[in-house]
Structure formats: C-alpha cells, structure tokens
C-alpha cells in the first residue's frame, strides 16, 4: 500500500512549518558541534578536517600554480628592467653588511669559547622542510593556510613555520600530504615572545588584524616603539630567538607588532621540525621515578658495611661539639668555618681489613 493511499492521505503540513522544524533541528546540531569542537589538535573532528583538507588542498594547489608561475614571470621580466637600480642597492647593502659579518664571525668565535669553558650544551640544529602555500584563509575569525607537505615528510602538529623574514605561524593539523598552518594573526594564536632590548617577556596574541597584540608585558617601560620582538622559547613550543617583528603603538593604545613576515609574500615557507625541549634528552630519563636506581644496587658486603660504619664513627669523633646558640642571629660572615678533620681520611674499603 502506497503512503498516499493510507490514513495520512489527507494530512497536509504547511511547507513553511516543515522548513522551520528543519531549521531548528539543524541549528541544534550546529550548536552541539560548536560546543564540542575545540579547533585544536585535540578536537574530535580533526580527522574530518584532515580528510576535507587533503581533498581541497590539491584543488587549491591547481589554482595557486598559475599565480606562482605568473609571479616568477614578472620577477624574471622585472629583473631586466630594474637590474641596474637593484645592483646599486645591493652594492650599498653589501658595503653596510661587511662590518657586521666580521663582528658576527668574531662573536661566534667568542661564543664558542664561552660554551666550551662553561660546558654548555647548545641546542641541536633544527631540521627543516620547505613547503608551498596552496590556500589562504583571511578574515576576522581565522587566518590560516594550507601547505603542500604533510605528515609523510615528518611534519607534526606544533612545528614552527618561518619564511625568509621571520616567524609566520605554526602547524595545527596534518594529513599525509597537506598540513594546516595557523598564522600569528589568527585569533587563536598565542606565542611567547621577548623584547630583544630588555629581555622582557610577553605574549603575542592574534586578533585577526595584520598586527597582533603584545600582551602581558613584564616590567614597566620595557617596550619601546621599534624594539625587536623575538620568540622567547618559553614553554618549548618555539626555539628561542626567531625574529618576529618590531613593536609599535596601535591606534587603540595597545602595543602591537609589525610582523617581519609581512615584508614579502608568504608563498614559500620553511617548517622547522622542532618539537620541544624534550627532544634534547631521552623521554624515558625524564619520566624515570626519583632514585630509580636504588632498587638495582647490590647489597653491601660485610667489608663495605664495616668501612662505612668506621668512616661514620671517625667523622662523628672529629666534628666539634655544637656551639651555644647566640641570642641574636649572627651575620653570615661570623659563621664558623668548617674545620679540617683531625684524623686522616677514612681508608678505602679494601684497606679496612
């Protein structure tokens, strides 16, 4: 029996009402999605995002390719027309940079000597991957890009992304061949930074505009217009010292940063395969419980136990009796110096027998 031949044959529901019910149901679904989605790598919908991006990414790459070719072509043609002026500019720049090169070599030498004297273990060189931007999302609520390399080339969530001028953003999602980069200007971007001149710490906060805010600046007057802003490396998300931009006062009175990465197109970028400070040491060593080796040490032999007790008895006999406590605390310089032991050092365990 067909539906229209049954008891519902004469029931007519207004189309507006059915549409309204559909709207309400779909809106409830959207609200639930909004509540459950965190937009971060912990989002339960991250595989869905990765799946859609792995499909839309190559499509965006097809559209981006002619743009890139056109850019190469204009650069090629422009190179002929502006070769003389560019040659003059580069000569001037080279003459200005040569003293800096000498200073850099000298400082590098001094720095290496200091590191050797202090036994400092410097950070290992960070491996990088070059990628192309194939899709660009701008707007008040999101500033992100798709890159044409993914997890198959070692890209992981959290990797910093730089271009030839400075820090651009970080990776927030990966699929085998496509990765999503969140720019520093996105409303969800938070980057720990430092002011190069004063070493003051701050947090770089994106708000959708081209110049992210500088918030939670530590110290009064620690920022001036024109100060260079670098990544601080606090928290281990970024390596320390990556150039980010220059501090400037915004029209709303807040400190903002003019990004170095805006000096050129963000078409080719380099992804730093930097994870966090944990890569400097074995994670197992960090996660080992305190005094974990105590359970593996063998029991002391009778000879060793006798030597230990003999040494303890000699040390106790050599130590002076406790002095009476003064009424007022004595200054640090008046503390009695440690007296040398009256007896020779305890014999080695092998000599006690």
């Amino acid at each position, binding site marked *: 029996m067909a539906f229209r031949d049954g008891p519902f044959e004469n029931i007519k529901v207004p189309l507006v009402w059915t549409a309204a019910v559909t*709207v309400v149901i*779909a809106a409830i679904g959207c609200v639930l999605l*909004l509540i459950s*989605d965190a*937009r971060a790598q912990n989002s339960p919908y991250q595989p869905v*995002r990765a799946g859609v991006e792995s499909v839309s990414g190559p499509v965006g790459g097809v559209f981006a390719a002619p743009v890139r070719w056109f850019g190469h072509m204009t650069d090629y043609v422009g190179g002929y027309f502006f070769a003389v002026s560019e040659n003059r500019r580069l000569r001037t720049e080279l003459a200005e940079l040569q003293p800096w090169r000498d200073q850099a070599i000298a400082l590098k030498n001094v720095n290496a000597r200091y590191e050797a004297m202090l036994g400092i273990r410097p950070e290992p060189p960070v491996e990088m991957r070059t990628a192309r931007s194939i899709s660009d*999302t701008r707007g008040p*609520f999101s500033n992100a890009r798709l890159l044409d390399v993914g997890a198959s080339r070692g890209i992981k969530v959290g990797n910093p992304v730089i271009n030839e001028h400075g820090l651009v953003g970080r990776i927030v999602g990966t699929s085998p061949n496509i990765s999503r980069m969140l720019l520093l200007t996105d409303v*969800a971007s938070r980057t720990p930074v430092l002011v190069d001149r004063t070493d003051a710490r701050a947090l770089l906060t994106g708000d*959708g505009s081209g110049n992210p805010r500088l918030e939670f600046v530590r110290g009064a007057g620690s920022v001036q217009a024109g100060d260079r802003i670098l990544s601080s490396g606090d928290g281990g998300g970024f390596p320390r010292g990556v150039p980010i931009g220059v501090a400037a006062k915004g029209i709303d009175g807040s400190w903002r940063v003019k990004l170095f990465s805006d000096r050129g197109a963000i078409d080719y970028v380099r992804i730093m395969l930097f994870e966090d400070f944990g890569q400097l040491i074995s994670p197992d060593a960090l996660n080992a419980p305190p005094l974990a080796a105590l359970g593996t040490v063998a029991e002391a032999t009778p000879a060793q136990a006798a030597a230990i007790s003999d040494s303890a008895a000699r040390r106790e006999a050599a130590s002076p009796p406790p002095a009476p406590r003064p009424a007022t605390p004595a200054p640090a310089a008046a503390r009695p110096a440690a007296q040398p032991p009256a007896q020779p050092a305890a014999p080695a365990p092998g000599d006690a027998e």
Partner: protein
Amino acid sequence: MRRPVAVRVVGPMQWIVYPALITVAAAIVLQTPVELLGLHLPEPVIPMVLAFAWPLIRPSILAPVVLAVLGLLLDILTYGPLGLWGLTFLVIYSVVLASRSFLAGQDTAVLFVWYAACCLLAFVLAYLVMAAITPTPASLIPLLLQIVPTLLLFPFAHRLIERFEDGDVRFR
C-alpha cells in the same frame, strides 16, 4: 490516452544543488594565495547569498540542510570552529523565512536593505560566538573588510530570486 502537458519543473537540483556547488567552488577559488601590491583577493561569505535567497524563492526542507552542510564546509575550509557559519546561515534563513510574506514582491531597494540587515545580523552573531569561544575578541577592521564584499554579492542573490521565484508552475 492522456496527452503530455508541457510543465516547467524546477527541481531542487536547479535552485539548491547547483548554486551550492557553485558557492563551494567560488569559496575555494577565492582562497587562492594571490598577493598583488600587498593586496589579497576578497573573501566574502558567499553562502550568505543562498541563505537570503532560498527562503524567498520557496520554503524547503532541503535548503536548511544544505545550508548547514555549506556552513560546516566553510568552517573547515577557513579553519573556523565547526558550526559557526552553519548556525549563522540558519539564523538568517529563519529570519528571512519569517519575513517572507513581507518581502514577497518588494522592490530591489527594499530587498537590498533587508539583505544588508541580514548580513549585519550574521556578522554580529558570528562575532559574539567567536568572542565567547576565544579569549581575545576579533578586530573590527577585518570584520568590516569582510562585510563589504559580502554586501557586494547582493546582485547574485537578486538574480537567483528573480530566476527561480515563481519559476515552477506547480507552486502558483
């Protein structure tokens, strides 16, 4: 034997599916990373055209579902929180659906004013939702830079309404 009658049937493929696919394609194309003299391609919220035009063309069950799907797709493409634009489009759809009897047959200028009001409502709603989700509210300047190109899409909405409103003789 009944003779066939020439009836012009405008199914959901014509006024829902094809425009939705065109919208997705346009959104992907406008995300191409083009930078010329420091300027980028505009990035309007293209499905706003459909959220405004579809309830005026005809109330439908399929249209809100497709709008929600378009919103989710836009959220993924723009790396926004899932549900943001879907909820916004559905609110605009319901507002226009409620005012359908008022807007039917109105002049183009009235439709544009209503479209502008709907756009404003949509962006205010999206702004408030994002302010509730993220600790830092978005800057207003990029918000304006997205509202203006979205407003400029009104001719497409008007064309869609003119093309399909009253286009199916079965709904006369």
